[in-house]
């Protein structure tokens, strides 16, 4: 196996991971504030609580109404802790599904902006059915009767991200990463050493270009040269342009075709040898 530290790609994928986690990187809330007007937040899962790690609300995008679901990572340490670094509890996923169902009822498209390490692993999350909440979102998003776009803006961490990303268009920002487990998690399991995270990132192929090459996303949103953190407003504008393009294309599709295409896309992901 080529050593990740010395191969020509040395550290490239790990460097992308660090870029995706850059403290100055525009987060979903920044993008929400930049791109949408007349935003109204809605709260709560109607069962247990209002998860601060996910923010749901309706807004206008270039004159059109839509439902926006965005991770809240928090910017200061105090905020980060209060929002659990953007890692949702089951209530967060249930609130998001409620927001999506509301959009479906009133025939408005749905946008999710995703930047999270994963669903929150905790005692309470297990007690209240983290797995069930994620599973239900996967199933319901696959048949939601309105156009949906999911954008991985930073980190797309495993099932916790996928539970917001079963969409007609799944996009990644150029320097975002999307993976089944964090490089640290993979390293500690497969190498029994979390310090081998760069090798794990290389082995798992986590960058936007990798994930697109594997057929698991529909497009890459360009970032300003040097990364989104160097020109956050410009990064938001680049995303806005892509969203306008994709929403327009999806809006032209008859509903049954939209649903059939979404189903076929996920049904046909991945290759295997037969016979």
């Amino acid at each position, binding site marked *: *196996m080529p050593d990740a530290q010395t191969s020509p790609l040395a550290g490239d994928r790990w460097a992308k991971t660090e870029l995706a986690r850059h403290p100055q990187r525009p987060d979903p809330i920044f993008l929400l504030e930049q791109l949408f007007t007349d935003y109204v937040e809605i709260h709560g899962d109607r069962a247990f609580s209002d998860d601060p790690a996910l923010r749901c609300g309706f807004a206008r995008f270039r004159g059109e109404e839509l439902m926006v679901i965005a991770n809240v990572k928090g910017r200061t340490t105090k905020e980060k802790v209060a929002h659990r670094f953007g890692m949702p509890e089951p209530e967060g996923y249930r609130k998001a599904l409620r927001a999506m169902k509301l959009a479906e009822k009133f025939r408005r498209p749905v946008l999710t902006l995703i930047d999270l390490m994963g*669903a929150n*692993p*905790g*005692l309470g*999350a*297990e*007690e*209240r*059915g*983290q*797995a*069930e909440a*994620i*599973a*239900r979102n*996967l*199933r*319901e998003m*696959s*048949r939601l009767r309105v156009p949906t776009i999911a954008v991985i803006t930073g980190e797309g961490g*495993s*099932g916790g991200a*996928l*539970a917001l990303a*079963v969409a007609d268009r799944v996009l990644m920002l150029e320097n975002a990463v*999307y*993976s*089944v*487990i964090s490089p640290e*998690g*993979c390293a500690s*399991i*497969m*190498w029994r050493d979390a310090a081998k995270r760069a*090798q*794990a990132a290389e*082995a*798992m*192929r*986590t960058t936007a270009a*990798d*994930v697109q090459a*594997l057929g*698991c996303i529909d497009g890459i949103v360009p970032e300003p040269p040097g990364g989104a953190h160097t020109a956050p407003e410009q990064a938001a504008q680049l995303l806005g342009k892509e969203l306008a393009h994709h929403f327009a294309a999806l809006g032209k599709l008859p509903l049954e075709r939209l649903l059939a295409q*979404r*189903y076929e896309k*996920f*049904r046909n*992901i*991945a*290759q*295997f*040898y*037969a*016979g």
Partner: protein
Amino acid sequence: MTWFKRQQSGIATDGEKTVRTEGLWIKCPGCEQTVWKADVEANLQVCTRCGYHFRISARERIDSLLEPGYACVDGDLRSTDPLDFADLKTYRARLATAQVSTGLNDAIVNVHGHLGPHPVVLSVMEYAFIGGSMGAVVGETIARAIDRALAQRCALIIVSASGGARMMEGIVSLMQLAKISAALARFDETGLPYLSVLTDPTTGGVTASFAMLGDLNIGEPGALIGFAGPRVIEQTIRQKLPEGFQRSEFLLSHGMLDAVVPRRELKPFLERSLDFMLPTAG
């Protein structure tokens, strides 16, 4: 100088005095008693003293649930190793080892047969194959089981035993959660029954997708069932987890399972459930 001295040389013993007992007895992790292996095997791999459920292979599971004469289907898919993945070993080598030891192409077996009077498609995960982990082949095979049950208008049963998504297939393995959940959404709309049986262990992406989406979610006694692994949670919250955390009985009391059913009673339970869910014959 020794106290005793052998006076005669060449004393012969009349044959072997030891009896080989390896493999005849096993120690039960539940009650820590040594139990006669043949008794446990005859009892569907459940301890005769304490009821501890040992893990069983996919084939043993199928034999315990279906009438003889079932047909194995969809067994021909093999992984392409989409990432050309290697950690301390190559993924290809891990696959080859698992294929030899289990006789399967991947961690899943689909069969079509009868459970009592009901025709069913049964998909069973094989934990002995790389921890029952789910890559593209497991995902596709389960999706084909769903398609098959849909085409034949019969019930679907999936028996889970898995550590979750197979990280050696990276993001491709994650996408299997979406694939199967989308297929189950379609199946759900037909009004046909889907019964999910969760066995030891069912964690990660398998729990967070099809295992929790059954019309009934049924656990085996004492099975570890959860989203995050117990070690990950302990490291995150930095405290010891309570006794019985993430076991079937814990999930039952928290409202996540419809029932916890001992292995010996599982077949009648499934049959009874299908009686309720399917139109009465005649």
